[in-house]
């Protein structure tokens, strides 16, 4: 497919990338490109310029802090998470990243690209919302930390503004996590997904039932409590060719219970 004409820049630093993004409202960051290139082929989006983040070592890397906090560079690929010994501190990360698409896409696709796209069918927005991740956004005037509730704003929309860049994602320590999804094909995109985390309180995040992940905090991880929390959320999921709204509501309940069950089995 021949793309529309587009400018391209390969900055040498994060600061330079931010400058390039700030200089042109039509410039977009190019991370793994496993969504953006398709979006450009379909003419669903036509950036004036692509600021290629590949090659910026500052945006790479997985660091495990003394308190168990994981700091993940936004340009870390799914494969790097799957193969990282540090990332095993929070096993759900590799479990979920290994289910995304296929080898080729996992080799290129990045966690930062996944969350910044905020496609409701993506795996990582609900997962990171359940884990209580912190998103580090850098702009021309320095950086700010944003919670998952503040980060995901709408379909394809996040708190990362024009002239800003997601640089890191911080994941607190914990092991009792679960993830369940009904997907298109074995490891395809999600029709509905649910992530659960029982570190401290119970946190469940549902994907594909609203524009942003829906976070629930049931009193316990018991099936009845989880079901009650999903009912109370009075979801009005979108309907499409894959599932009606009612069926998505049904799946949300089933998958929330499954994810919570998986998380409680991993209590250490």
């Amino acid at each position, binding site marked *: *497919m*021949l*793309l*529309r*004409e*587009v*400018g*391209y*820049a*390969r*900055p*040498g630093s994060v600061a*330079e990338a931010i400058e*390039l993004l700030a200089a*042109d409202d039509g*410039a977009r960051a190019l991370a793994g*490109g*496993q969504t953006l*290139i*398709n979006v450009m*082929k379909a003419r669903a989006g036509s950036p004036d*310029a*692509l600021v*290629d983040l*590949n090659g910026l070592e500052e945006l790479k890397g997985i660091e495990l802090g003394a308190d168990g906090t994981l700091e993940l560079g936004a340009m870390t690929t799914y494969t790097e998470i799957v193969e990282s010994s540090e990332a095993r501190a929070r096993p759900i990360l590799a479990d979920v990243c290994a289910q995304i*698409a*296929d*080898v*080729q*896409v996992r*080799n*290129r696709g990045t966690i930062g690209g996944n969350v910044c796209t905020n496609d409701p069918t993506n795996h990582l927005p609900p997962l990171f919302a359940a884990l209580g991740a912190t998103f580090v956004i850098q702009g021309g005037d320095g950086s700010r930390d944003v919670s998952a509730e503040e980060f995901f704003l709408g379909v394809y929309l996040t708190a990362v503004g024009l002239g800003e860049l997601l640089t890191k994602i911080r994941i607190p320590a914990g092991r009792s996590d679960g993830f369940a999804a009904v997907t298109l094909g*074995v*490891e395809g995109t999600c029709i509905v997904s649910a992530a659960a985390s029982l570190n401290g309180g119970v946190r469940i995040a549902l994907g594909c039932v609203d524009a942003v992940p829906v976070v629930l905090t049931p009193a316990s991880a018991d099936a009845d409590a989880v079901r009650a929390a999903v009912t109370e959320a009075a979801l009005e999921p979108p309907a499409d060719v894959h599932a009606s709204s009612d069926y998505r509501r049904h799946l949300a309940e089933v998958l929330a219970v499954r994810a919570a069950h998986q998380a409680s089995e991993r209590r250490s």
Partner: protein
Amino acid sequence: MEAGTVSSQRQISVTVNGTTYEREVEARKLLIHFLRDDLDLTGSHIGCDTGNCGACSIIVDGTLVKSCMLLAVQADRTQIETVEGLADGEELSKLQQAFSAHHALQCGYCTPGMLMSATALLRKNPHPSDEEIKKGLQGNICRCTGYWNIFEAVKAAAE
């Protein structure tokens, strides 16, 4: 053109199967088109052009990717391996021989991608389990064989 400036055209240097090519390319050109149209390396195929079928799979700096999901400018200063580089002259690689022996292709359209995915898999994991072979080929679609003979060929090459 300087690295950090925006331009719609760029001079790139790419090494494909050991040969270095220097070309001026448009930023909008996909890597698969660069290989096929500019370098005349038509072994890598375009199947779906949406990143699903894997017929365009190649190895860039040791990593298996779909070349319809990268821009040619992103391949600047990389080492690329395509299906044309697998055989040593007339001698097929062990994997290619196994594909032939096990009748792992019918129309052959998916074969270049299948071979590159299996090559990448066996390099990383020389003795994969059945499950690992299936997972390693998940990004490649074949509409003829039902996959079984491809799986058998990869398994035979691994032994």
